[in-house]
């Protein structure tokens, strides 16, 4: 009987597949939803381009999209080299924030006393603007890469800590009781129950932190750049600003934005893989 149900299910799936093959691409239900944001973007760019051309807006005020793209291609070696630098800082900070955040969260849930004594400092870390402490860090830490990574890590750390700690504590009380009745050790409860329960929260933290580590990296580069040193995209933006090379400024900005979107996309993909269809958020 169950076999029939499963078979019926798979035939239904095959049928929808055939239906999709027959419908024209643009008329498929998912298509409109996927195309809509692109359409908005294209319309926006067209208006921007038209406006600049029509009113002959000087490119040192608002460059046309075509001018930005041209500059991006022209300055490609310079800008992509800087992108690589910023990306390096971002990814190192993101990785460091993830590892540190998880370790600190695991520490927090070990005892309420540890959490009570450390949590205020985690908040302190979160509310202090990184621009305010970045100059100090850059002075204290000799190695520039290390200093920038440290700044970006500080920005990206908190969401991982708070989300993971919340997840480790948000365990179904019935399952806690089940583990207790079965004489589970602390370690077994952590590995088999608390960590899997925390995964959806942890992935939520990852999404926020991916963007924050990029922001942290760019802000730190800005501070370093005003001090006269740097090679990242923020430095290019600063320099382009000084030189009134506004198209290049926009091109660098575009690269930062695209990087942020790609990073976010990767974390969404990772969380989809990690939750493999058991969590409500992934259905």
């Amino acid at each position, binding site marked *: 009987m169950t076999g029939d149900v499963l078979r019926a299910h798979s035939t239904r799936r095959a049928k929808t597949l055939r239906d999709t093959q027959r419908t024209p691409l643009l008329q498929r239900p998912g298509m409109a939803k996927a195309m809509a944001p692109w359409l908005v973007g294209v319309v926006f760019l067209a208006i921007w381009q038209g406006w600049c051309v029509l009113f002959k807006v000087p490119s040192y005020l608002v460059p046309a999209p075509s001018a930005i793209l041209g500059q991006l291609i022209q300055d490609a070696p310079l800008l992509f080299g800087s992108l690589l630098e910023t990306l390096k800082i971002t990814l190192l900070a993101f990785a460091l924030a993830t590892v540190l955040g998880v370790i600190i969260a695991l520490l927090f849930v070990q005892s309420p006393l540890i959490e009570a004594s450390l949590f205020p400092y985690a908040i302190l870390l979160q509310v202090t603007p990184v621009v305010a402490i970045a100059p100090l860090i850059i002075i204290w830490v000799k190695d520039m890469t290390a200093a920038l990574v440290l700044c970006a890590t500080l920005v990206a750390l908190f969401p991982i800590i708070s989300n993971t700690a919340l997840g480790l504590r948000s365990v179904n009380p019935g399952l806690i009781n*089940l*583990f*207790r009745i*079965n*004489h589970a050790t602390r370690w077994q409860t952590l590995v*088999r129950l608390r960590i899997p329960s925390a995964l959806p929260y942890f992935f939520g933290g990852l999404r926020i932190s991916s963007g924050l580590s990029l922001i942290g990296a760019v802000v730190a580069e800005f501070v370093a750049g005003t001090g006269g040193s740097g090679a990242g995209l923020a430095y290019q933006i600063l320099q382009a600003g000084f030189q009134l090379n506004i198209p290049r400024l926009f091109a660098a900005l575009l690269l930062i934005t695209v990087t942020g979107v790609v990073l976010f996309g990767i974390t969404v993909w990772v969380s989809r893989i990690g939750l493999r269809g058991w*969590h409500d958020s992934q259905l």
Partner: protein
Amino acid sequence: MDSTTQVSAQPDTLAAAPSRDNPPLLSVQRVDKRYPNGTIALEDVRLAIAPGEFVSLLGPSGCGKSTLLKMFAGIETPTHGHVRWWGQPFETVGSPGRRMSMVFQEATLMPWATVADNVRLPLDLARVPRREADARVAEALAGVGLAKFARVLPRELSGGMQMRASLARALVTEPDLLLLDEPFGALDEFTRNRLDSDLRALWQRRGMTVVFVTHSIYEAVYLSSRVVVMQARPGRIIAEVPIDGPLERDDAYRVSTPFIQDCKTLSDLIVDAHRASHMNEDAEVQS
């Protein structure tokens, strides 16, 4: 209501009355449970359950039946008095011949693990070798009719099937004592009746001791060899009623005269106790 209606277990049940040769499997002596806010969840509860009995704890919401069951499971401790398992404190539970399992009100399955992984959990926690564990999981799943769903995630199962998986997880350790906390309360009547029949058959086949919490009189009478009736405010035992039904029970039993008589007895007990406690409340209000 300080006198408890005590009737010894009947010869037509599987269990023998507790005696010196046959010590109670579970005993509760003068147990109180008070919460810091002053609520008295249980007051002066005394109960002995013999090996092989099927005992139901029956009563309205707030009578402490779930609290009492949680004490049996070792996840709730009494404020006064003590609970003994096989005459021993809780630490000895879990050794061979003294295994205990519990089925909760909800299926409480791990949503990230397949049905088979969920059912294997108690064996994994006890570090049973993988091969032996897998064989026992397959057997337990077949026993509840879920053999084909071993590799499926819990969310793909219906409520009744999730409960079956939960039951399989409780049975995979071959428990000597099985505790169930209103396990089928959230299911429709047909599914519930079927699972009740399965549970009763399982109890007969395995010869284990079962403590079953319910607020359904019909379910209690259908399943049990003895029904412990409880009352709220404060939570206490007001009567223990042996069920004289046949050992083999089927749907015909649900409409038989002894079944209906037992239901009526229990219903009267609960209604009278309810009325008495309300009269007390009225008297308190007047004074």
